[in-house]
């Protein structure tokens, strides 16, 4: 296909600059996004092995709730959480903080029944899974704007640029696409090989990338867009609200939990409740938000579907379920959510999204390398090129190193420290900035080799830690369920080591891109 040369050049410029501006931020967003696919497994892996205190099959939830309401009416009325699958304490409420927002100091009161007596435990809420999610949504930028993290807006803008980079990338490929799509030309030198694989990954996963780019823009800016859209709706309200009841409810009249669960199950067949969040139970607008899981259906939340009911009247307030024929629009947008969250294909879907996310990160990394290579060949002494090279290595490796260090910290410090969430943050930023500084001080060649070796060692320490902890208390070992995380960590450790070795072995004439020695060398 022919595209006019000057337009092609414009698109080349657009592709280059949008990619360079947004690439590093998106790199973090993507690989952390891969991790979010398994964030609960990772958090569970990091928690100390514990003996189950309850059996979800035989727990008497009604007795538990009744006892808790009897002894702690005010706390329970404010709202509580009920986990229907856990073998730990199923009931909990916040004594400090709340579920919404990114708060690191939340304290939870957990409760379970032991021989008909309420057993209470106070503990800090463990936020490892949320922090992985936070890194995914903000790329680590701190600070808040309104009720959202500022990093969310930064990623929103980056995603907009990324959309432009995708379209422009496709357009500049069009003239040669048919000829070179499946070509991975090794013989023409590493830079050609990197370009080919950059293009192959980009084109092959284009639909995924377009969806991610545009949904991120929506996630970041939906409030503003609704605000704009409201201007065109005139006097029409955008959303209709359920009017509050005339009189406040009283928690002592709460419908039995089994009736509630039955009502939730009846709403649609095939969905099983796994968690309930109760809120404002002594007010005029109480709610019970059911997390409903159906392994055979597409889910529209990050993990499950939602069903909110009034726990007194059992009236349905809100649901994320696919609706009937009359709600084509709701169903359509709901599926866009699941296309971002990767929750439409069960566990295989999660693995596919995990891999696609890593490929996405590769796309940005290779894009940066290609840009660096081109600039190096043109003028090897330009400061900006060197700065970008160091940034690329420092940010990409630093961020991964920091996450692995946090996991390692989580594995060990959870045994010792009550509230570890602040240490996670400190550890992440410390390692990240040390890596960045190291890359600037020692140059990209040394930084990438040493960074990869360190990364390989740290990653290998994850399963080693599991083994040490597991073997130190054999009685608890049967309750350990983090084997898959350990296994994947081993594979990644080997992978990092392999890449590092390759960097070292390459003969000098091959060193154009993959190895940054040329950058140092030309200097």
């Amino acid at each position: 296909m022919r595209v006019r040369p000057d337009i092609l050049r414009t698109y080349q410029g657009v592709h280059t600059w949008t990619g360079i501006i947004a690439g590093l931020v998106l790199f973090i967003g993507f690989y952390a996004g891969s991790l979010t696919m398994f964030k609960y497994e990772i958090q569970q892996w990091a928690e100390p092995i514990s003996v189950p205190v309850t059996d979800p099959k035989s727990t008497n939830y009604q007795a538990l709730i009744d006892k808790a309401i009897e002894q702690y009416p005010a706390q329970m009325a404010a709202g509580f959480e009920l986990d229907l699958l856990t073998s730990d304490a199923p009931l909990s409420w916040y004594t400090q903080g709340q579920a919404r927002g990114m708060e690191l100091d939340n304290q939870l009161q957990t409760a379970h029944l032991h021989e008909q007596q309420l057993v209470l435990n106070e503990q800090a809420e463990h936020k490892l899974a949320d922090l992985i999610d936070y890194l995914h949504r903000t790329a680590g930028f701190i600070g808040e704007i309104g009720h959202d993290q500022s990093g969310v807006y930064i990623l929103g803008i980056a995603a907009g640029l990324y959309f432009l980079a995708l379209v422009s990338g496709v357009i500049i490929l069009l003239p040669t696409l048919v000829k070179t799509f499946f070509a991975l030309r090794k013989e023409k030198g590493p830079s050609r090989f990197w370009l080919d694989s950059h293009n192959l990954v980009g084109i092959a996963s284009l639909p995924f990338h377009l969806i991610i780019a545009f949904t991120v823009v929506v996630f970041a800016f939906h409030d503003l867009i609704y605000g704009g859209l409201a201007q065109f709706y005139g006097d029409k309200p955008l959303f209709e609200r359920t009017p509050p009841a005339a009189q406040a409810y009283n928690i002592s009249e709460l419908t039995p939990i089994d009736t509630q669960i039955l009502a939730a199950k009846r709403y649609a067949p095939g969905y099983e409740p796994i968690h309930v969040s109760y809120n404002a139970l002594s007010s005029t607008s109480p709610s019970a938000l059911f997390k409903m899981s159906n392994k055979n259906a597409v889910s529209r939340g990050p993990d499950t579907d939602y069903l909110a009911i009034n726990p007194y009247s059992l009236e349905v307030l809100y649901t994320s379920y696919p609706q009937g024929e009359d709600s084509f629009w709701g169903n359509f947008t709901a599926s866009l959510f699941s296309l971002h969250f990767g929750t439409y294909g069960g566990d295989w879907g999660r693995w596919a999204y995990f891999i696609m996310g890593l490929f996405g990160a590769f796309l940005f990394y290779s894009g940066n390398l290609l840009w660096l290579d081109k600039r190096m060949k043109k003028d090897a002494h330009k400061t900006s090129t060197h700065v970008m090279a160091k940034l690329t290595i420092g940010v990409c490796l630093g961020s991964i190193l920091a996450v692995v260090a946090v996991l390692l910290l989580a594995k060990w410090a959870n045994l010792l420290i009550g509230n570890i969430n602040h240490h996670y943050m400190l550890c992440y930023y410390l390692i990240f900035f040390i890596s960045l500084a190291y890359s600037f001080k020692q140059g990209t060649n040394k930084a990438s080799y040493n960074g990869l070796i360190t990364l390989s060692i740290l990653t290998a320490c994850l399963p080693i830690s599991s083994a040490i902890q597991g073997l130190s208390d054999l009685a608890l070992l049967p309750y350990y369920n983090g084997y898959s995380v350990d296994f994947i960590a081993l594979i990644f450790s080997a992978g990092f080591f392999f890449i590092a070795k390759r960097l070292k072995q390459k003969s000098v004439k091959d060193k154009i891109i993959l190895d940054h020695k040329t950058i140092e060398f030309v200097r």
Partner: protein
Amino acid sequence: MTDVKNSRKEPTWLGKSLAGALLGLLLAFILMAFFAWYGPGGIDARDKVQFNMWMIPLLWLSIFSLTYLFNSSKQAWLILGGLNMVLYSLFYILRGGL
């Protein structure tokens, strides 16, 4: 970009970018406004507002990324600006205000 000098036509990405960003956004809003009122289901269709909101960034980014296909940034401004003028005026007449 160094190869710009020897080219017949200069790539004009700044003017086009601005046109795509600003006029593209306005155009996306007005298109979805028409869709909201006069598209299938009308303004009262259940949950349609969510769809309308979702489509705005998609339209915007699509227009934005294709703006560079215009021959010049002047053409981009004229065509996108003209479309906006026509559609916003039409909406104003039909609905008696924004």
